C-alpha cells in the first residue's frame, strides 16, 4: 500500500540529544497538528506515544536527530534519523525490560526497557536501522483509519 504521492502535510523538526528541558516538544507538536487535521483520537494517541518514546530515546542516547513528519490520506509517518551511538543488539533492545539507561534517566521516570517495545505496540509498521557509532533511524508508520 503506497500513497506516497499524496502527501497532505510534511514538517521537519530537530531533536537535540541531552536536551531534557525540551524533550517531548516534537511529539506534543505533532499531536496538536494531528488534532487540527481531525484524525480519530485513538490514532492520534498511538502516534503521539510512539513518537514520544522515540523522541526520548534520541534525547537520552543520541547526539541529535532530524525528524520528518508526513501525513497522507492513509498513513501518518514519523521518521527519526539520529546521529549517535547506535544500537549494538537490536533484538535485545526490542525485549521488554532490557535497558542500558543510567540512574539519572531512571529518576526521570524512564529507562524501564519499555521504549522500543512500546513504539512497536503503537505503530502499524516499525522499521529500525542502526549502525554502531553512526546512528539509528526509526521509521514509524500509523494507519490513519482506526
Amino acid at each position, binding site marked *: 500500500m503506497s500513497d506516497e504521492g499524496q502527501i497532505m502535510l510534511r514538517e521537519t523538526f530537530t531533536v537535540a540529544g541531552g536536551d*531534557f*528541558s525540551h*524533550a*517531548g516538544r516534537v*511529539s*506534543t507538536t505533532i*499531536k496538536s497538528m494531528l488534532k487540527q487535521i481531525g484524525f480519530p*483520537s*485513538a490514532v492520534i*494517541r498511538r502516534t*503521539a*506515544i510512539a*513518537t*514520544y*518514546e522515540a523522541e*526520548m530515546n534520541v534525547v537520552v542516547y543520541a547526539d541529535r536527530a532530524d525528524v520528518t513528519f508526513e501525513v497522507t490520506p492513509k498513513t501518518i509517518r514519523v521518521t527519526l534519523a539520529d546521529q549517535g551511538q547506535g544500537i549494538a543488539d537490536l533484538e535485545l533492545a526490542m525485549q*521488554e525490560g532490557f535497558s542500558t539507561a543510567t540512574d539519572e534517566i531512571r529518576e*526521570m*521516570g*524512564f*529507562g*524501564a*526497557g*519499555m*521504549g522500543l*517495545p*512500546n513504539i512497536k*505496540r503503537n505503530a502499524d509498521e516499525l522499521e529500525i536501522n542502526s549502525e554502531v557509532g553512526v546512528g539509528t533511524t526509526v521509521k514509524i508508520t500509523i494507519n490513519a483509519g482506526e
Partner: protein
Amino acid sequence: MTLNEVIHILDGELLCCDEKMSMEITDVCASDLMSDVLAFGTAGSLLITGLTNAQSVNTADVADIVAIAYVRGKRPADDVVRLAKERGLPVLVCALSLYEACGKMYEHGLAAGSEIREPQ
C-alpha cells in the same frame, strides 16, 4: 466523580486549570514510571504519581491523561505548572502516599485506568 470531588477526597490543592473543576473522572492509573504510564495507562484517566518533572506533564499529554495528582507532598516547579496550564491539564498536589491516594480513589469507586497483560 468530578475533579472537584477528587481534590476534596485527597485533601489536595489544585495548581492550575480551575475551569476544569467539574470534569468527570472515572479511571485512575498510578505510577512513578512514565514508561509504564505510556505502555499501560488508558486514555481519559487521572494519573497519580510522585514524579513532578516536566516529563510527567508531557507523558500525560501524549497518553490522553486528563489530570495529574502529585502525592507525597511533592510540588512541581513553577515551569512544570506553567507547562500543564498551557496544555490545559489540571494538576493537583496532596500530602498522601501513592498507596493512600490510590486507596481513597478505589474506595470511592474509581476504576483502574490501565491495561495490564498477563505475566509473560
